[in-house]
């Protein structure tokens, strides 16, 4: 079950993509969202907000998504945050690199709303396993 009460940080250098991702998240049920236009901006927003989920692009100026992921995973306070990468980088090496860096899940652009929702469901199923 996706916890839609969480505050979501949407990170992408393209304003159109941030808008699209936010609208999809809104349809899923999220209402509390913050935007950042690159990894460095995302780190600033993480310090200033109580973020519960990060949805980030890979290719961004200033600080890429993969670097943001590494910084988040290296920080004791943030390392358990669910981190969904939404990116056009679909090469095997990129996916392996993201998995090794600790990404929670990975969506390839162009994506469908169902695909994004499916990945989020998997993230939250792992985070909150069903009691047997």
């Amino acid at each position, binding site marked *: 079950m996706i916890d839609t009460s969480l505050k979501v940080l949407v990170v992408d250098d*393209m304003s*159109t*993509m941030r*808008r*699209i991702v936010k609208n999809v998240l809104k349809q899923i049920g999220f209402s509390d969202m913050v935007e950042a236009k690159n990894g460095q901006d995302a780190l600033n927003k993480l310090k200033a907000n109580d973020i519960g989920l990060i949805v980030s692009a890979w290719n961004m100026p200033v600080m890429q998504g993969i670097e943001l992921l590494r910084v988040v995973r290296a920080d004791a306070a943030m390392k358990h945050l669910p981190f969904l990468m939404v990116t*056009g980088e679909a090469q095997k090496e990129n996916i392996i690199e993201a998995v090794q860096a600790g990404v929670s899940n990975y969506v390839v652009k*162009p994506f469908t*709303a169902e695909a994004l929702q499916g990945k989020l469901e998997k993230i939250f199923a792992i985070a909150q396993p069903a009691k047997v």
Partner: protein
Amino acid sequence: MDRAIEADEANMPEDDRSINDELSELTKYVKVITSTIRAMESPGTTTFDQLPQATAHLNDLAKMTEEGTQRVLALTEAIETNRGAIQTAVEHLKRKLDGEQATEVKSLVELVKADERRLMDIHVALSFQDLVAQRVAKLVTIFNEVQHKLLKLVVIFGIKKKKDGTSTKDGGRGNEMLRQLETPRAAPFEQDLVDDI
């Protein structure tokens, strides 16, 4: 003078003659390379002028697709807001009715709900713009690298540009394409003026 050189060459030890031949070959080769590079002056410097313009147009392309996408997103958001309001109103109406009328209204609810999915599909389909912008950014990077390398050639080999800065006739198709791209930047004719003409 040439006969004196030939005489000198005939008297040279064999090893020296071989080195001399190789040096002559090398000199000929350098002359060929230099004249080839000089022949590149015209297309090389034209390309050098065209690349920044091409890069600017690529950046404009990314910006235009972004602006268009934002407009479509705004419209789909407005449609979704209306759709949501209609769905709520129709569901409210359905609760007040029974029998055949309730059934008819139920089918209306289904119609309105189906559009929710279509609007979301339109929304995510617009993510093409992001992929376009990324490709454009990569092209711009490639063009900048080519320009940098051309500049190195210009500096190293002293390829001359025309002082008056005009393009050469060899600019050809590239210059024609750029001229066509530049034309819309001047104020386009309004529809009324076109109709009058």
